[in-house]
């Protein structure tokens, strides 16, 4: 009886450990995709071409600990630095910066939102309990 109980406890512990490790690995995968192992700049798909920018245009440069966000305001780029973190909860994982949590998904190039870009990712905000609206950012590099 006691051996069975211990076996059950071990099994539960291993399952839990596996789940936690899985989530951590996924979060690291998301970060790896965005940083490319170093630092990588991503553009919002549909950004206006240089030198002028349009409202809504943005670029994100991800590195291990931070993300540099450049946003277009009044025809010029404004830059800000945000701390980049990973998160995992409820079987999901992703990255967090600028006060929002995002799930990261690599998309196939033939997804309409990717507009033919081979390296295409989608960042989707996780519901924060305050509003029903979630936001998706489609990035390519």
């Amino acid at each position: 009886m006691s051996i069975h109980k211990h076996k059950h406890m071990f099994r539960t512990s291993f399952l839990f450990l596996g789940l936690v490790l899985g989530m951590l690995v996924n979060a690291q995968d998301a970060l790896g995709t965005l940083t490319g192992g170093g630092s990588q700049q991503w553009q919002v798909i549909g950004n206006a071409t240089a030198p002028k920018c349009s409202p809504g245009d943005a670029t994100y440069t991800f590195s291990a600990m931070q993300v540099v966000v450049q946003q277009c305001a009044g025809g010029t780029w404004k830059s800000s630095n945000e701390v980049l973190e990973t998160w995992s909860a409820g079987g999901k994982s992703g990255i967090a910066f600028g006060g929002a949590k995002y799930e990261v998904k690599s998309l196939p190039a033939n997804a309409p939102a990717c507009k033919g870009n081979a390296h295409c990712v989608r960042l989707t905000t996780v519901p924060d309990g305050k509003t029903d609206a979630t936001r998706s950012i489609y990035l390519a590099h």
Partner: protein
Amino acid sequence: MDDQHPKPTGPAQTGRNTDYSKAVAPLLTVLGISVGAWQFTSQMSHESKMEFSRSMYTKKLQAYEEVGKAVGDLLVVPHDEQQWISADDTLAFDSCLERFRTCYWGVLPLVEDSAVETAMIQFKDMARFYRRGENDYYDLAREGMSLMNACNVSLENHWSKPKKGE
């Protein structure tokens, strides 16, 4: 001492006892009525709370059943559970998504809790992503399962978790 002040046992003492009992009896009656009224009110209050909780549970169950049907319908649209949505299925999928959106906006806001709300939002998003060909069937099915699990937990917690303000 007792010899000097013997206990009064005459008619005067009996009269004083009668006075006390006359005063105490109405007090006890008032007290009894008050306790009875308080018990009755508290019992009624408890009953009405239970009745409200019971009717909320029933409403919640009905709403979650409706959501379950909408989720199930969305998940069986792709007949052979193929990985990506096919052009033949989009019309039926849109129609089912419409029904899910009706639940999302019309039925659930009255009864859902925060975990169910989050799962509803995530399933709605995933259905949209699947429809656009960004996520595959397995992602959609996984979100559907998460939503139904959240509904299940919400029903389980209905009786065990104390409500705010209680």
